[in-house]
Every structure is written in C-alpha cells, then in structure tokens.
C-alpha cells in the first residue's frame, strides 16, 4: 500500500487526483494517512529543508512490511551539493527503501483557473510517481516520456501532456510487479 502523508495542507481535490493516479500507476491501494509537521532538525539556514534529513527525522506513520510512505510538502528542499554544484531538488526517495518526499515548491503555481489547477495536479502526480518509482529500485531514464526521467531535465515539458501512469519500459513495470509479490 502507498500511504500519503501531508506535511502542508493540500486541497482535497488534489489529493483525490493524486491517490487515483498512484493507484493507476502502481496498481496498489493508496490512501491519505494523515498530516505531520516538518521536523525542525532538517531546516537549513535559508529556510529550505535538507531532504535526506527530513526523511530521517519526520514523525513516522504506522505501516505494514511492504508499505511505501510518500510525504508531500510545500517547503523547498535541498541536498548536499555535488562536485558540480547543487542539483535542483524536487524530492528525494530512499532508493529501494520505504520513504519518499516530494516538494511542490518548484512546481507551477496552482492558481485558481481550471487549467492551472490541472497543470499543477498533473505535475504533482508525475513527480510522486517518479519518487515512488525510486522506492522500487528504479533508476532515472533518458526517455522524456517516462515517469523516471529527471524532473529538471530540459527535455521534460513544463506541462506534461502524456500518460502519467506509464513507464517507458515493460521491464520497469515488471520489476514493480515482482517487488509487490
């Protein structure tokens, strides 16, 4: 089961769209498991949160063995800089583990119009699929149409107009299916 935990208020409609899309993508029951507070230990000097530390320090939710927990926050996330600089942090997942976090800070503004809300929802769902994919050992993919394509890559359109619940390869889906069994 995929359990969504919100670290900031999220609209009910957005949450419903997210649970539906995650269910379509992974074939697993998805539910909202409650709200938690952002851990202060993970807060940096600039007001952003260290993504790795956040997952370590955040209050846990009750899970059964193979459950995956997805935290959704509005706070900007950061990570330790690489030798070439700090990559833009849209979220972080414990590779092959149980927890992932996604930030909406870099996503297009939700706005009030139907179109802008739709864009926001699709992007949120896409990023959530991406980071939950990492929880099943999936690496990034070079295909821009795949959900595992890096979030910041120039090939990725701002408004992804493709099936959100698809991976580019059967192998990826098979891997997820095997992991579930």
């Amino acid at each position, binding site marked *: 089961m995929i359990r969504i935990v919100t670290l900031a208020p999220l609209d009910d409609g957005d949450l419903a769209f997210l649970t539906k899309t995650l269910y379509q993508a992974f074939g697993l029951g998805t539910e909202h498991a409650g709200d938690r507070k952002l851990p202060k230990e993970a807060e940096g000097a600039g007001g952003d949160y260290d993504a*790795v530390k956040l997952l370590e320090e955040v209050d846990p939710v009750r899970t059964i063995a193979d459950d995956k927990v997805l935290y959704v926050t509005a706070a900007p996330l950061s*990570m*330790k800089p*690489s*030798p*070439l*600089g700090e*990559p*833009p*942090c849209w979220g*972080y*997942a*414990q*590779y*092959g583990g149980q927890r992932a976090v996604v930030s909406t800070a870099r996503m297009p503004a939700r706005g009030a119009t139907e179109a802008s809300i739709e864009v926001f929802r699709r992007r949120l769902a896409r990023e959530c699929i991406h980071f939950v994919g*990492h929880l099943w050992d999936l*690496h*990034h993919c*070079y*295909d821009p149409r795949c959900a595992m394509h*890096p979030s*910041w*890559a*120039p*090939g990725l359109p701002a408004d992804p107009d493709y099936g959100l619940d698809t991976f580019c*390869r059967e192998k990826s889906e098979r891997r997820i299916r095997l992991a579930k069994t």
Partner: protein
Amino acid sequence: MKGPPARHPEEKKDEFPGLEGVIRAATELAPGDRVVYPNQGVCRVVGLEQKDIAGQRLELVRMTREEDGASVMVPMNKVASVGLRRVASADVMEGVFHYLGAIRDDPELDWKVRHRDNVERLIAGGVLGIAEVVKGLHSLSRLRPLPTKEREQYDNARHLLVNEVAASLGVPPGVAEDYIDYALDPPAGVKFQLKPPPKPFVLTIPLYRRKKPPVAAEGDLGLEDLGLDLKALGVAVPEGEEVEGEAPVEGAGAEAVEVTAAKPAKAAVRKPARKAARKAPARKAAKKPAARKAPARKKPAARKPAAKKPARGGKKK
C-alpha cells in the same frame, strides 16, 4: 561444447591496468575494507576462509555486496586477476564528474565495436570506465533509442556508477543519481565551470581479444616460405602496389607484425584492419585480371592444390 583453449603455463596472464587502487594481492585486503568488484558493485571484505571445493582446499576471500548482502568469494590467488579495486577517492570522483559534464564526442556508431569496448571498460576501466559507458550510451540515446542489449548495459553501468558515487562521496544512492544526471543533463541555463577531465584509460591488453597471429597480406600465399620460386610458378605480383610506393607484400606483413607488437592497444590494432577492409575492394579489382591471366599461361593440374594449401596454412598460422 568446446571451450576456450587451455592456457599455456608460460602464457602471460591478463593484466589489469595500473589504475589507482587496483588490488594486486590478497594480502592488501583487511576485514572491513570496501572494494569494488567489477560488474558486481561495492563489496565489503568479511575475511579469509578455507573451503574444500572439488577435492581441493582453497583459501578464499569472503566479501559481502553492500547493495543486497550477497556473498562473493574469490580464491586468494585470483584476487589480482579479477580486477578488484578500492572505492574511488573523492578526488578521482570529482574528475569523473568533470568528465560527465564535458561535451561528448560523437559516439562510436559500429555497435559491435561499441559493445565490446563497453564490456572491457566496465571490467577494467575503473570508475572512469563506467562513467564512459554511461555517458557514451546516454549521448547515443539522444540520437536514437538504444537496442535492448545496450539498454541493459546502460542500466547496469548506471547502477554500478550510482553505487560507487554513493560509496565514494558518502551520500545515499538517490542523491548520487541526482548528481550524475545533473552532470549529464543539466537544467536549462546551467553551465559548469569544468576542469580538464581525466584522460580515458586505454587498456594495454584487451581482455576479450587474445593476441591473434598477424594475418598475412592478401597477395602473400606463403609460397616463398616453402622455397618456391614465384616467377617460375607464374604467380603475378600486383604492380599497382609497387607503383603507389607501398612496401612489397613481404614487407607489409612484417610491418604489420611490428605495429601489433609495439602498440597492442585497441586503436592501433583496429585501424589497420579497417583500412584493409576499405582497401580490399580496390585490391580485388586490381588483382582479378592478374588472377585470370595466370592460369591462361599454363594449366598444370598439380599447381592449383599446391597454391592453395600453403595459402590456408599461411592464414591459419
């Protein structure tokens, strides 16, 4: 099924290149050391143990793969030949990132050559070799979708690189993967201040290409080795080659031997082969009339087999 021929006791074993951190003997290992086993990933040395295998008492180095905890055992006398190396240092890893961030040359388009090179890089090229495979196949994927086999190779190489970057820089694999993709596919408007990347390593002895005997030049049937007089037999020597100023057939063969012996690196071995392949049609065209002329002069029944037999022997040498 016929396997590879047995190695002669005096034949030189494959040597792994002088990469930084390559482990030459089991005595260099201590329990708790982190090493990289080619094509397997980062392992932690558990210790030495003895086991009876097929009636022999073997001393083995036991390691645990960090990724999934699988046990890996290597006989002590084979530690040097399997290509074990220490996890790349932070300095080496920085060079790898500068390599990943640099502009990539055009990828090799011959898939057989590319695949073979990539297999060798993954085994013996160190962390930079793995990065070369990832970057090469990544840039190729921008031109066209990768075929299944190369896609698997790309996935494996990426997996190995992610794990080694994570182990080397002390970050979780999820972050390590972001680092790699940030270098390979930077966001729009981002430009790196790159240092000159390290030079890609060239293997001194290709692992999967045993030394082949030099192939005799096309016109050389090996008749002179048998003490036969070419002129008396009426075998025509192509004139075109002498006119162009190239070395005569014997000389060309000898030169080829020297080149392969002096520069056994892959580039040196392959280039003459490609050039020969390009020249082949032209040579054939030049020789056809000569070959037709030769039997027209005399047609002794015994000559044909006499000319063919040494040719086979000469090629198989």
